[in-house]
């Protein structure tokens, strides 16, 4: 009878696809179920005794907050030293997968390629982030947030919009005096989660971009005269500052430094047609719409989600960790640190300065369930 029930359940779950119905017939576990179904490995409140060390590398966006977390954690646990490095999400994933570091940091979840070839790896959300689109357009007032959408941005990166005074930009920004400054698209030279997020946004809003270029941590950028490639978020901010007419995608943690560099940031068109700037409220609204659909392994794209007032480029910042550690002490240290990050470390005192948002409560449960797998 149990088998019959399971088979019937499988068939019932398959039916929605067969009918292509718009309703959800999901039998995938809910976040709460997943938390209950976690292997039940305990999460220690403190690291192992004696001198302990953890190494982290990866996302340049996550780097500043990780450095802050590491310092704060050391204040509480003086025996633990944590080294951090900003090397890009791609390198964070690769080095964590290879066992070269204890924790990889990534703006993008692990790909199927990563997970299937490294089935012991997990991606654990640490905080909510977003991506801003910066520009260096001379003459604009600092409080002005140009309205841009995926199609216009795609045309900038494809080279079909070459001037900031192009009517396709002007029509989105009535009343704004746009200069005849040439558009200079900046993109990341390294394999980057930020590139994944930005090109994902372009792909959702512009079918020709999706058809021709697509999305990924690395893409074949259309050849545009004057376009520049920069390394890391710091490089993107510096490069944009030095290049009048630039347009660049930068992680939200760099909003202050970008603003300080005189760069503006755009209000982006969301899936329902509204233009939203990356504020805590618009970011939180967008993430909330994905909480119920986040799967147990927390792999989910939240770009261009179904919210009226949500900001369209939001994401979880992930720790990439192996569930098979070389020693019990190492596993204990990693579990204790990651658990601290998603609980105490998600306090405003750590996140606000980088404009990150805390994880929703049910996502903390999912993350704890994944942390518990580390052993």
């Amino acid at each position, binding site marked *: 009878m149990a088998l019959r029930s399971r088979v019937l359940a499988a068939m019932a779950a*398959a039916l929605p696809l067969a*009918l*292509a119905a718009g309703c959800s017939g999901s039998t995938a*576990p809910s976040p709460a179920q997943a938390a209950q179904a976690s292997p039940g490995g305990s999460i220690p409140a403190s690291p192992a005794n004696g001198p302990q060390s953890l190494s982290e590398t990866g996302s340049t966006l996550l780097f500043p907050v990780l450095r802050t977390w590491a310092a704060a954690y050391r204040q509480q646990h003086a025996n633990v030293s944590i080294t951090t490095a900003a090397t890009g999400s791609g390198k964070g994933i690769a080095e964590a997968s290879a066992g070269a570091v204890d924790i990889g940091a990534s703006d993008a979840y692990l*790909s199927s390629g990563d997970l299937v*070839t490294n089935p012991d790896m997990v991606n654990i959300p640490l905080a909510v982030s977003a991506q801003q689109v910066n520009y260096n357009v001379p003459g604009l007032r600092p409080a002005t947030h140009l309205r841009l959408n995926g199609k216009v941005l795609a045309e900038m990166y494809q080279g079909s919009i070459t001037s900031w005074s192009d009517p396709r930009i002007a029509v989105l920004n009535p009343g704004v005096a746009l200069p005849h400054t040439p558009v200079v698209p900046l993109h990341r030279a390294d394999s980057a989660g930020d590139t994944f997020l930005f090109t994902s946004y372009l792909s959702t809003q512009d079918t020709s971009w999706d*058809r021709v270029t697509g999305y990924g941590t690395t893409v074949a950028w259309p050849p545009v005269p004057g376009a520049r490639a920069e390394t890391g978020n710091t490089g993107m901010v510096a490069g944009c500052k030095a290049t009048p007419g630039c347009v660049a995608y930068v992680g939200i943690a760099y909003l202050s430094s970008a603003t300080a560099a005189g760069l503006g940031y755009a209000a982006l068109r969301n899936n329902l047609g509204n233009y939203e700037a990356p504020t805590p409220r618009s970011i939180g609204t967008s993430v909330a719409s994905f909480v119920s*659909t986040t799967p147990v392994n927390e792999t989910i794209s939240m770009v261009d989600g179904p919210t009226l007032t949500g900001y369209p480029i939001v994401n979880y910042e992930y720790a990439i960790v192996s569930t098979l550690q070389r020693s019990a002490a190492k596993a204990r240290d990693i579990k204790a640190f990651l658990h601290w990050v998603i609980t105490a470390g998600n306090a405003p005192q750590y996140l606000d300065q980088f404009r990150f948002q805390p994880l929703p409560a049910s996502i903390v449960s999912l993350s704890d369930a994944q942390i518990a797998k580390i052993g």
Partner: protein
Amino acid sequence: MTTTSAPPPAPSPAPGPAAAPAGARRRRSVPASLRLLLIVLVVAAVAYGAVGTWTVIQHASAAQDVVSTSEPLSLAAQRMYQALSDADVTATTAFLAGPYVRLPARERYAADIGRAAADLTSLENATTTSANPQLVHSLAAVAAGLPVYTGYVSQAQTQFLLGYRLTAGSLMQVASEEMHLTLLPAARASYAQENAALTAASAQATGLPWIVVVLVLAIAVAFVLYRAQRWLSRRTHRVFNLGMLAATVALAVSAVWLIASFAVARTDLQRAVGHGSIPAEALAQAAIDTQQARGYEVLNLISRSGDATFVKDFQAVQARLGPGPGTLLGAASSSSGAGARWAAAAGRDVRAWYAVIGRAYTLDSKAQYTSETALVIGPGAGASTAGFARVEADLSRAIDADHAVFHSNATAGRNAFTGLDVVIILAAALIAAGCAWGLSRRLAEYR
């Protein structure tokens, strides 16, 4: 009734007083010896019948198991893997092809899931918890993972229909990960277990030890019969004892029948294994590897958030699959199986498919996702879809041909045991009855 070719037994001369005790002993010892002989021969006949019948039943049962249980279950496990793999490729391809999931894709996905569920049901119904813990565990993993997988696909489909392609894409990745990390390994393990059961059943059906035991027993009974008849002949001056002669004939007929039946069955079953299941096993492994390569190739299309690709996995599959010496396709095409020519065709077609896959991975490394997608799931004759279909069709024909050979020979082998158990039982009964009758007549002469 006894046939006499010698003078009837003369009553013993009247013993003298001195000879009286010895004569009495002899008169007492002959009936006692006859009774002992009777008991020994009846017990030997029963032992021959019991061991012979048990052995025949064991072999016939194993042969029956090969034909009606192990082979169908092995096929079901292979089909389950194929259906699961195809379901994931179909769902992912439909998602990538967008913007709408076409009816044939929906129907194919639903049919794949239905077939996998049906095969899973057959496999679970045939498996008891005590039979094979590993198999039970593998099937339980498939049973538990299948609703999870279809649930994620449904979620992805819902997001897709609502217009959230990227979210749908990430949920489709989660579904595919469930497929590649849980379902397919469990299905592959199930196939390996079922195939091992088929091999074990074939070995049991063709095994020699108990048949040798029965033949040794038959020789022992024949020896006792011979010695008993010779002793009787000397003691009673009769050349033949008809009862024991009938017992000897029954023993000889049953032993020859046993040897002939077993030889035929063993030859047929060995031919079924050598020309059917062994080449089919290599082909099934090749089909699984082919589906794995196709699955990875399609999964790679939506795997954009990291740097890892399936190039190494593809190269590993290529090295295992062949063609060439020491590879699965090499072994299958050089075998004596009926599917060898189709295996050779698969070997030719797979080279062209490899070239397409290689080009796709090159495009992937250059982030030429659009061209890669067109090459991998596009409709053209030069696309990977067509190349995979050709290889899959070749392998399916080859497997079907080898399974047909296996089935016909295994069925013939099983049929060779038909009626043999009855022959052994009848022979044992005849031996016992013949001995009892023949010796009772002699015993009666001493009353």
